[in-house]
C-alpha cells in the first residue's frame, strides 16, 4: 500500500557500423550489394544537390535554403526502409528523403526557387514540405489512421527535428498515434540544434526517444550517422506498424554540419571545434569505408558517380531555371472552382499585368 515503484521504463540505443567499416555481425541487415550501392549513391547525390543549392542561393538564384549536410545517413537509411506506397511527410530539410523517394530534383529546385507549381507530390504519397514546425506530425497520424480505416497495409513516416518535439502539435500527434495505434513511424532527426538553441535547452529529458514513453509506445535512440542502424530501426518500426503493433519514435542522433539555413551564422552559437568533432563522423565517409571493405566502392566508382550525379544536377538546375510560374495558378487552385470574388481579383491583376506590358 505505501510508496512503491509501479512502472519500469527504458530506452535503447542502436548502432551497427563502426568507423573502421565493420558492422555488428548480429545486427547487420541482410542487404544485397545493389541496395547498399543505392544507399551510397543517394547519399552522395543528396550532398551534391544540397551543395549546389547553397551555391545557387549565394548567387541569388534561390530562396533561403536549409542544408542537410551531415544528416544523410538519417535521411537515406530511413527513406529506403519505406515502400513507395507508404506515406512520407517531411519537414523542410528532408532533401535526401525526397530524392530517395524519387521526387525529380528539378521540382525540388523549382520549389526552393520560389514557386508552388513544383509541389506535385510526385511520384506518390510524398507530401509537400511543412514550414511551420511540427504541424506535419498530425497529418502523418491522420494519414495512418485513414490507412487503418481503409484497410490498406501501409504506414506513414514523418520527419521532424529535435526542436519540433517542443511544439503542441508533436504532442497531440504522438498521443493520437498511441491511442489509435496508428501505423506511424516518427523519425526525429536530432541534429543537436534548433537554429541556435542546443538540444539540452530544448528539453530537459535525457533523450528525445524517451518522449514516446509518455504516449505508451516505444522510443529508440539510433546512431543517426550510421545508415545501417537507421535503416534497420526504421524497417523494424515499419514492420511493427504494418502488423498492427502501433507507432514507434526513432531518434536519429546526428548533427547539422552546416548552418541552419543560408540566413544563419552558426559561429554565433557554437564552437568550430564542436563542428570539427562531428565532421570526423561524416556518415558518407563512414559508410564508404564499409563498402570499400565489401568491395563495392573504389575510387573509380566514386569518380564515375560524382560525374554522373553532377551532370544530373546541372540538368535539373537548368530545367528549373527555365521554368516560369503561371500567374493564373495563384487564383485557380484556391478552391476547386474559382469563386466570383477570385475571378474578379484575378481579372483585375491580369489587367494590371497586361497594361504594364504595353
Amino acid at each position, binding site marked *: 500500500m505505501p510508496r512503491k515503484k509501479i512502472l519500469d521504463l527504458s530506452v535503447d540505443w542502436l548502432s551497427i557500423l563502426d568507423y573502421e567499416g565493420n558492422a555488428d555481425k548480429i545486427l547487420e541487415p541482410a542487404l544485397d550489394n545493389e541496395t547498399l550501392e543505392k544507399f551510397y549513391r543517394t547519399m552522395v547525390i543528396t550532398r551534391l544537390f544540397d551543395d549546389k543549392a547553397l551555391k545557387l542561393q549565394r548567387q541569388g538564384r534561390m530562396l533561403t535554403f536549409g542544408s542537410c549536410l551531415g544528416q544523410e545517413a538519417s535521411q537515406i537509411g530511413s527513406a529506403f526502409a519505406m515502400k513507395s506506397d507508404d506515406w512520407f511527410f517531411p519537414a523542410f530539410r528532408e532533401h535526401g528523403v525526397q530524392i530517395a523517394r524519387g521526387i525529380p530534383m528539378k521540382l525540388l529546385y523549382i520549389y526552393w526557387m520560389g514557386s508552388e507549381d513544383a509541389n*506535385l507530390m510526385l511520384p506518390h504519397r510524398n507530401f*509537400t514540405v511543412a514550414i511551420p514546425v511540427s504541424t506535419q506530425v498530425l497529418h502523418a497520424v491522420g494519414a495512418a489512421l485513414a490507412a487503418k480505416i481503409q484497410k490498406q497495409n501501409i504506414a506513414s513516416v514523418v520527419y521532424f527535428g529535435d526542436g519540433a518535439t517542443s511544439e503542441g502539435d508533436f504532442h497531440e500527434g504522438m498521443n493520437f498515434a498511441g491511442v489509435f495505434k496508428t501505423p506511424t513511424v516518427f523519425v526525429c532527426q536530432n541534429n543537436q540544434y534548433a537554429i541556435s538553441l542546443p538540444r539540452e535547452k530544448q528539453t530537459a529529458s535525457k533523450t528525445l526517444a524517451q518522449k514516446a514513453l509518455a504516449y505508451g509506445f516505444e522510443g529508440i535512440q539510433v546512431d543517426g550517422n550510421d545508415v545501417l542502424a537507421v535503416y534497420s530501426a526504421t524497417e523494424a518500426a515499419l514492420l511493427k506498424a504494418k502488423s498492427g503493433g502501433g507507432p514507434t519514435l526513432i531518434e536519429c542522433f546526428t548533427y547539422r554540419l552546416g548552418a541552419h539555413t543560408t540566413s544563419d551564422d552558426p559561429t554565433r552559437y557554437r564552437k568550430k571545434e564542436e563542428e570539427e568533432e562531428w565532421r570526423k563522423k561524416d556518415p558518407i565517409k563512414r559508410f564508404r569505408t564499409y563498402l570499400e571493405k565489401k568491395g563495392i566502392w573504389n575510387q573509380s566508382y566514386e569518380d564515375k558517380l560524382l560525374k554522373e550525379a553532377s551532370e544530373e544536377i546541372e540538368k535539373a538546375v537548368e530545367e528549373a531555371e527555365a521554368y516560369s510560374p503561371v500567374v493564373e495558378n495563384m487564383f485557380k487552385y484556391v478552391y476547386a472552382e474559382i469563386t466570383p470574388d477570385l475571378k474578379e481579383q484575378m481579372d483585375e491583376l491580369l489587367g494590371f499585368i497586361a497594361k504594364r506590358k504595353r
Partner: protein
Amino acid sequence: MAKLNMVQAINLALQEEMQKDPAVVVLGEDVGVDGGVFRVTEGLLDRFGSERVIDTPLAESGITGTAIGMAVSGLKPVAEIQFEGFSYMTIDQLAAHASRIRYRTRGRYHCPMVIRAPYGGGVKALEHHSEAVATFFIHIPGLKVVIPSSPYDAKGLLLSSIRDPDPVFYFEPKKLYRAFREEVPEGEYTVPLGEGKKLTEGNNVTVISWGAMVRVCEEALEKVKDISVELIDLRTLSPLDEKIIMNSVRKTGRCVIVHEEPKTLGFGGEIIARINEKAFLYLEAPVKRVTGYDIPVPLPKLEDIYLPDAEKVAQAIKETVHF
C-alpha cells in the same frame, strides 16, 4: 416528411451521408459513446462503428490536423470542435494547411473536410461557450464558412459541405439547436454553398444577417410592419453571395446588417465595404450595423443586453429608413 429541430436535421444529414458514402467519418471529443454534448452525433457510433465514429483525445489542433491527414488520404472527415470558443486552436492547422493543400499542390491533392462547431450566444452558457468567431475563419483564403439558420438549411448545407471538395467550417447556432422545428425531407436534397436566401421581399430596406440573428431579425420585422423589408439570410459567409446583396441594395438603397460577432472586423464591415464598392450610387443612407460589442462576450447575467435583439434591430431599421 418529419418536423425536425436543427439538432435532428444535422444528425439526419450525418446519418444519410455516412450511409451513402463510406469515405465519411466523424471524429471529435465525445462524439461517439456520448453522442456529442448536444447529441448531434447521437446514434452514429451504434450504426457505423468505432472506425467511422471516433472519440478522440482532448486536443483541438490534434483533431484538425488529423482530419487533414485523413482528407488527403481519401476520406471525408467531419470533425467536431465541442464549442466555438475552442476553435482558436484549429486556426493554425486550417490557415497553414487545410486551406492551402489544393493551392500548394496545384490541384493534385485537396482537403475535403468539414469542421463543425456549435456557435454563438443566447443559451446562458459558460465562458468561451457563447462566442461568435466567424471572422477568424472567413479571413482564411481557401476555407469556406457556413452558418445555417434553420433545420432545413442545416441539413442541406451540411450535405453540401461534406460533398464539397474543399475544407468547410460549418458553424451551428446553438441557440437554434432546439428552438423550433420545420419540415425536413428525408433523403437527397442539398442547399448549395455560396448562395444566400431572401426570406422576405421588400423595397424600403435590405436587412442582412446569418445564423441565430436571422431569427432576431424576423422578430424585429414584427415591430416595423409599416416598413417593407427585404430580409436576406446569407447562409454561407465564404464564399460570399455578393449578387443577392447588390441586387437587393440597388433596389432598396438602404441596408442594415445584423450579427452577433463583435463590431470591429465583424463580417458586417466587409459587407459594407462591398456595398460601398459596388452599389455606392444607389445608397440613400449609411449602412447600419447592429452587432456584438467589441468586448469579450459577457457571462450570462449580462448576455442578453450584449446580444443584438429585436428592439435594437427595429430601431436600426427605422433610423436607416428615416435617414
